[in-house]
């Protein structure tokens, strides 16, 4: 039996494992960064932590999605919408952690980083994308929004790397991670548009996603080793 057919035959179990592994990686990142946030109250760390908190929730929802999709189509659709909402929020937070200095004044301080006037806009956009996706039964809205977000993030991260990549080694890996993330979203869109969710294409998306999250975990562990 080839590795490919083994993967295809155990698709659901593998998907559940995949979601569990990624949500565990995200939770590890959240725990690590939350400690630094509690010590420094640095807003960038706060938004970065929130991004992985939402990625963790998104993959948690995906895990449940995997469990319920065989039992109830209704639950699967609702969970799909929740999954989309968390995913879009995560992308927004990751992007915002890179640009917040240009958007917020240094004296601006919100008690809650999950619900304040600026983040409220993200919630609304994420909600609209999730609802539109649910109504049209499509992921296109999420894919396009994430491609745009990752493209903008890539420009910022790459310019950070050009500016100070020599002193701060992880900036190179951050750029690679965002590039892989962008690649995964583009492949997702292509799989939906042209390849009818081809299993091989989706397997590659999964691999890119795992590398994306592991790169961030590697960075957080390496940089915070002390």
């Amino acid at each position, binding site marked *: 039996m080839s590795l490919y057919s083994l993967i295809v035959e155990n698709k659901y179990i593998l998907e559940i494992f995949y979601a569990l592994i990624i949500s565990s990686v995200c939770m590890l990142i959240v725990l690590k960064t939350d400690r630094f946030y509690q010590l420094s*109250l640095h807003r*960038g*760390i706060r938004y970065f932590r929130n991004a992985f908190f939402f990625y963790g929730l998104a993959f948690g929802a995906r895990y449940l999605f995997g469990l319920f999709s065989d039992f109830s189509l209704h639950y699967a659709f609702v969970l799909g919408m929740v999954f989309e909402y968390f995913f879009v929020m995560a992308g927004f937070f990751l992007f915002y952690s*890179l640009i917040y200095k240009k958007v917020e004044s240094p004296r601006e301080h919100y008690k809650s980083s999950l619900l304040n006037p600026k983040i409220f806009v993200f919630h609304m956009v994420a909600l609209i994308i999730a609802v539109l996706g649910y109504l049209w039964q499509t992921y296109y809205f999420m894919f396009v929004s994430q491609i745009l977000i990752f493209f903008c993030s890539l420009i910022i991260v790459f310019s950070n790397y050009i500016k100070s990549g020599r002193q*701060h080694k992880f900036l190179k890996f951050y750029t690679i991670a965002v590039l892989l993330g962008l690649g995964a979203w583009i492949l997702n869109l292509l799989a939906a548009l042209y390849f009818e969710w081809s299993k091989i294409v989706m397997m590659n998306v999964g691999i890119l996603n795992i590398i994306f999250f592991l790169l961030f975990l590697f*960075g957080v562990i390496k940089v915070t080793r*002390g």
Partner: protein
Amino acid sequence: MAAKKRERLDVIRDILQKIKENRQIKPTRLLYASNLSPQMFKEYINELLTKGFIKLEIDEKEKKTFSLTKKGQDFLCEYKIIENFIENFGL
């Protein structure tokens, strides 16, 4: 050439470091040592008190002194790591 403006975290580190070196320090001495304007100094001190990094003690003669809390000491130990994290992730 003008000296590079200190980042917010550097200012906090400098204030905490000064308090640590002196164990207890009077507000006026700390103001001079911190190299900040009185207005900025007040803002930073209020922030550090709110965060629980420092505590203000007033003795029976109404003399005020600042000292470092456990949280402030932890922050000083982890400052380098946090700074490194912020720079490596472009935050």
